[in-house]
């Protein structure tokens, strides 16, 4: 067991705090009043972070902007700006560095310091936590949290789960694994795939402890190297404990900028080959970098050095992001003359590398798909895997190209209520709203016992709900139908993903309908609301 101790400082909703500190959100609430105006920071149409007032109004992370605005009309919406967030964090880091040396940034808003030094200087870990909270409050972050544990991952989780008062949580030495064991498996999401926790839950592994109890070989075989790392973290074996590691200069890269550059985008563009070489050099030794030191030296000899940790491992793009953030943080008095990239924590890559997954596709297939991915994004290209589930959309999982196909819910064991073959040839990713009426024109309504008020006589796909051109317009008489079959899935959660009802509304049922033109449809009904879920076309 490692004898290192790590202290992590976490500023909740940092994007919002950064925007407020930066004056972007200063409105009638005024400076110092971030708690009063509801503020949300959005990225690509989705809410990324919310202020306490906005949270009280029901705005949550992950909502679409429109939905957030409909829940809270006076919501101030700000754009996500990683550069500004890094810049706003810089004064906070300096304030922390003044009392505790060796600060490492996990991301803007979260940093780690070696706890031993700070604890012995400030009189114990608890005292150090209290002092740092005080320092942060003076730096304009009143609601921060501190966690102390052996590894940075456990320490961050301790900070995130710390109570508002006293605002810190100390995990005793050697207590990382029991502490993590009780946490929900979702906390591993940044280390694993974003979809992996959902999968682990389906496998019955609800806590980090249950995941940690798996055999390491099984985890590696199913989740690849990121799974292996998540597993080590879950067991409390966090090798990237904060501070005090010897840098690996032979793997590092130094770039002299001649002439010196003062624009961040120029510096980043110049560094791109070096960052790629750095990652490729490590890959050549079957290593990945999880902790990186970036040193920026300006023309006059001034320097800014920062250590960055990564939840998975650094890709070339990640390295460049950190350089960009560090440049945004300021501290240099002249154009940048030299950049040092030093990997300080490296780990074996594990048993799997990208490209070998999926049964060893031919090189030219892999190249063509990667090219399309670079044009459209990583998640735009992939294959599908069929697993278990009742609804047609639940039964297939999309696996982005290059990712390891995740084991899905078993397809065989009983899924009562699943549709018998033949299966629909078009399964809508989002069910389209529809209207179904009886012979007399009264709407068909499903009651709590699963029976329809009137047999369906006519149906139509609602205006605006039609997913593609070529869908029938207007009413269509029903030639034959069957159902309703209860599809009472996931009623116990209020997870709205894949739930067309947008909330816990209880009873759902499916119907098969054939129109007079010979087209066949799979409809979903909940009370008086109807959706087209799939089409047999």
């Amino acid at each position, binding site marked *: 067991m490692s004898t290192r101790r790590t202290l992590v400082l976490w500023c909740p909703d940092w994007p919002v705090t950064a925007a407020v500190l930066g004056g972007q959100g200063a409105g009638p609430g005024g400076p110092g009043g971030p708690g009063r105006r509801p503020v949300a920071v959005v990225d690509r149409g989705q809410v990324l972070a919310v202020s306490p007032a906005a949270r009280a109004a029901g705005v949550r992370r992950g909502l679409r902007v429109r939905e957030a605005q409909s829940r809270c009309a006076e919501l101030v919406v700000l754009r996500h700006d990683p550069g500004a967030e890094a810049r706003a964090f810089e004064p906070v880091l300096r304030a922390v560095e003044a009392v505790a040396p060796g600060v490492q940034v996990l991301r803007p808003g979260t940093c780690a310091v070696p706890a031993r030094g700070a604890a012995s200087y400030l009189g114990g870990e608890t005292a150090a936590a209290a002092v740092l909270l005080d320092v942060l409050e003076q730096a304009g972050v009143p609601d921060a949290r501190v966690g102390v544990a052996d590894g940075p991952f456990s320490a961050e989780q301790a900070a995130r789960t710390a109570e508002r008062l006293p605002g810190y949580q100390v995990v005793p030495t050697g207590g990382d694994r029991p502490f993590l064991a009780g946490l929900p498996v979702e906390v591993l999401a940044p280390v694993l795939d974003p979809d992996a926790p959902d999968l682990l839950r389906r496998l019955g592994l609800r806590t980090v402890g249950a995941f940690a109890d798996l055999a390491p070989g099984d985890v590696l075989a199913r989740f690849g190297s990121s799974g292996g790392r998540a597993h080590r973290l879950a067991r409390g074996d966090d090798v990237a404990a904060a501070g005090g590691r010897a840098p690996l200069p032979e793997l590092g890269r130094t770039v002299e900028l001649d002439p010196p550059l003062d624009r961040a985008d120029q510096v980043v563009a110049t560094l791109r080959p070096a960052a790629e070489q750095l990652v490729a050099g490590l890959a050549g030794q079957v290593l990945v970098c999880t902790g990186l030191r970036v040193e920026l030296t300006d023309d006059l000899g001034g320097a800014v050095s920062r250590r960055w940790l990564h939840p998975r491992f650094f890709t070339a793009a990640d390295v460049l992001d950190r350089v960009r953030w560090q440049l945004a943080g300021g501290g240099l008095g002249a154009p940048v003359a030299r950049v040092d990239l030093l990997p300080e924590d490296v780990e074996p890559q594990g048993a799997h590398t990208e490209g070998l997954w999926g049964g060893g596709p031919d090189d030219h297939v892999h190249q063509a798909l990667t090219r*399309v991915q670079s044009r459209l994004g990583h998640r735009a*290209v992939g294959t*599908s895997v069929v697993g278990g589930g009742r609804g047609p959309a639940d039964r297939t999982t999309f696996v982005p190209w290059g990712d390891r*196909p995740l084991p899905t819910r078993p397809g065989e064991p009983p899924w009562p209520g699943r549709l018998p073959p033949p299966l629909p040839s*078009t399964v809508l*990713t989002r069910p389209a709203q529809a209207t179904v009426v009886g012979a007399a024109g009264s709407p068909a309504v499903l009651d709590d016992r699963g029976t329809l008020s009137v047999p369906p006589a006519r149906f139509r796909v609602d205006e605006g709900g039609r997913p593609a051109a*070529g869908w029938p317009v207007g009413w269509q008489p029903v030639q034959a139908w*069957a159902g309703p079959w209860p599809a009472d899935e996931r009623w116990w959660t209020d997870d709205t993903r894949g739930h067309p009802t947008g909330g816990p509304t209880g009873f759902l049922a499916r119907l098969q309908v054939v129109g007079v033109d010979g087209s066949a449809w799979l409809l979903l009904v909940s009370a008086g609301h109807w959706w087209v879920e799939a089409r047999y076309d």
Partner: protein
Amino acid sequence: MTVLPPELAERLAAARSAAARADRRFGTTTARRALETLPALAALLPGGALHTGSVYSVQGSVALATALLAGPSAAGEWCGVVGVPGFGAEAAAGMGVDLSRTVLVPDPGAEPVAVVDALVGALTVVLVGPVGRVGGAAAERLTARLRQRGTALVACTPLGSPSWPQSTAELAVTGSDWQGLGDGHGHLTGRVAEVVVQSRRSARPQRARLWLPDHEGRVAPVTTPVEQVVRAAG
């Protein structure tokens, strides 16, 4: 047979390899290749099979387009599905499509034809969904690439929209008769589809009645009277 002096033989070999390289580059000699095709469909297609370098237009039925993919995919070819956001993967698997070798690009963005172009050569059959209007020049360029690189294109368009320009064959489902569903009871057990194939080779369209799909999700010609099959499945 004359034995060439060594330097001449060397020059001949060099010339041959240069010619082969040019062929590979400009594709002048990539032969049209017949692909494995589901027997139910093979008889309807010109040449008796799906061929590389050709475009097949399918109107109004994703299932029929998928069935064209099923033969080559089951034979181990890499296939792609571009711009079909709701592609029913499980139904496709039922027809014989090997999902692990079928690449999906549900949303190809603003330039779907460019995405198809990038995949041509790497994949053997590409199914492309509705992509809006494809100009004659763009279609011609793509067809030339299909011939050079040995890829077949299946273009699936909704009923009533213009079919892909320059297609070798145009397939359409003109009538569907779904089995198994009553007035509030039963469940779908299969469909007898009226399939019409029009090709440039023959003036008269080919017609056939197919199970698309049958009660096990497969594609088959209708040979036994429908009622017997329904009874067996029911």
